[in-house]
C-alpha cells in the first residue's frame, strides 16, 4: 500500500526542518529501514529543499516549493519542485576533488547522488526526483550508505 504526501512550502529555510520531520514521521511504517530513512532519505530531502529555496527560488519569500512524496513497499520517491528558471546539474563540479574540497558550497547535489539510488532532473532543471529503494527487512547491505551501486542520474 502506498502513502502519498503533498506539501506546499513557503520559501523559508526555517520550514525545511519541520517539513522533513513531518515526512519522516509519516514514513513511520518503514521503520524496518531505519538508517536508510534517517540518513539517506532525510539528508537528501533536506538538500533538495535547500537547493530549491536557495538557488531555485533564489531566496524569494514570495515563491513556494512543492514536495510530493510517495512511500511504497519497495521504494520511496520524493519530487521537489521550485518556481525558479532551473539549472543544469551537469555544471556542478565534484566537491571531493582537491581543488574543491575547501570550498564551502557545492555538496548538496553530490550528497543526493551518493545517498539515493536515483536522482533525476526535469528538462527545465527546477524539479528533482529522488528515489530510494527499500530492501526487504534484514537484507540491508553496506550499512546503507548507498545501495545497488551506480544508478544515480542527473
Amino acid at each position, binding site marked *: 500500500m502506498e502513502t502519498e504526501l503533498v506539501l506546499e512550502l513557503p520559501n523559508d529555510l526555517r520550514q525545511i*526542518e519541520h517539513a522533513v520531520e513531518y515526512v519522516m514521521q509519516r514514513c513511520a511504517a518503514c521503520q524496518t529501514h531505519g538508517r536508510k530513512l534517517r540518513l539517506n532519505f532525510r539528508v537528501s530531502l533536506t538538500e533538495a529543499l535547500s537547493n530549491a529555496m536557495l538557488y531555485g527560488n533564489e531566496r524569494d519569500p514570495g515563491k513556494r516549493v512543492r514536495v510530493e512524496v510517495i512511500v511504497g513497499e519497495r521504494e520511496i520517491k520524493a519530487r521537489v519542485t521550485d518556481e525558479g528558471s532551473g539549472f543544469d546539474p551537469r555544471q556542478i563540479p565534484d566537491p571531493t576533488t582537491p581543488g574543491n574540497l575547501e570550498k564551502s558550497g557545492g555538496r548538496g547535489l*553530490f550528497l543526493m547522488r551518493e545517498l539515493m539510488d536515483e536522482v533525476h532532473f526535469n528538462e527545465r532543471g527546477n524539479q528533482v526526483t529522488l528515489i530510494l529503494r527499500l530492501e526487504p527487512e534484514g537484507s540491508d547491505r553496506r550499512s546503507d550508505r548507498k545501495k545497488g551501486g551506480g544508478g544515480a542520474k542527473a
Partner: protein
Amino acid sequence: MGFQVEKQGEVTVVDVEGQLIVGNRQELKQKVLEQLESGDRKFVIDFSNTGYIDSSGLGVLVSLSKKIREQGGELRLANLNEDLRTLFELTKLDTLFKIADSRQEAMAGM
C-alpha cells in the same frame, strides 16, 4: 537546539545541540568568529548531541576551519556518530579535519 560555547583551558569547545543545517549555520559561524576575533585560536566542535548535518553545515565547518587556520589556529571535531562520519567520508572532509572519538582526545596536544 543551539550552540553552547565554553572555555576549557586554552581550548574553546562548542557543543552542537540538535542539527547543524542551512537554517542555523550562520549562528554557529557567528559564535565561532566572535571567539576568534577575541583571540581564541584552539577550537573543538563537539557533536555528541547532534542529530544530523546537511551540506550547508559541512560548508560552514570548512569555512570556519579555513579562517581559523589563517589566524594560526586549529579546529578539531569530536564525537561524530556513525551517520555524521558517513557524511564526512562521502564528501572526503574526513581528510580535511582531525576527527576525534572524544572531546578529550580532540583537545590532546592542541
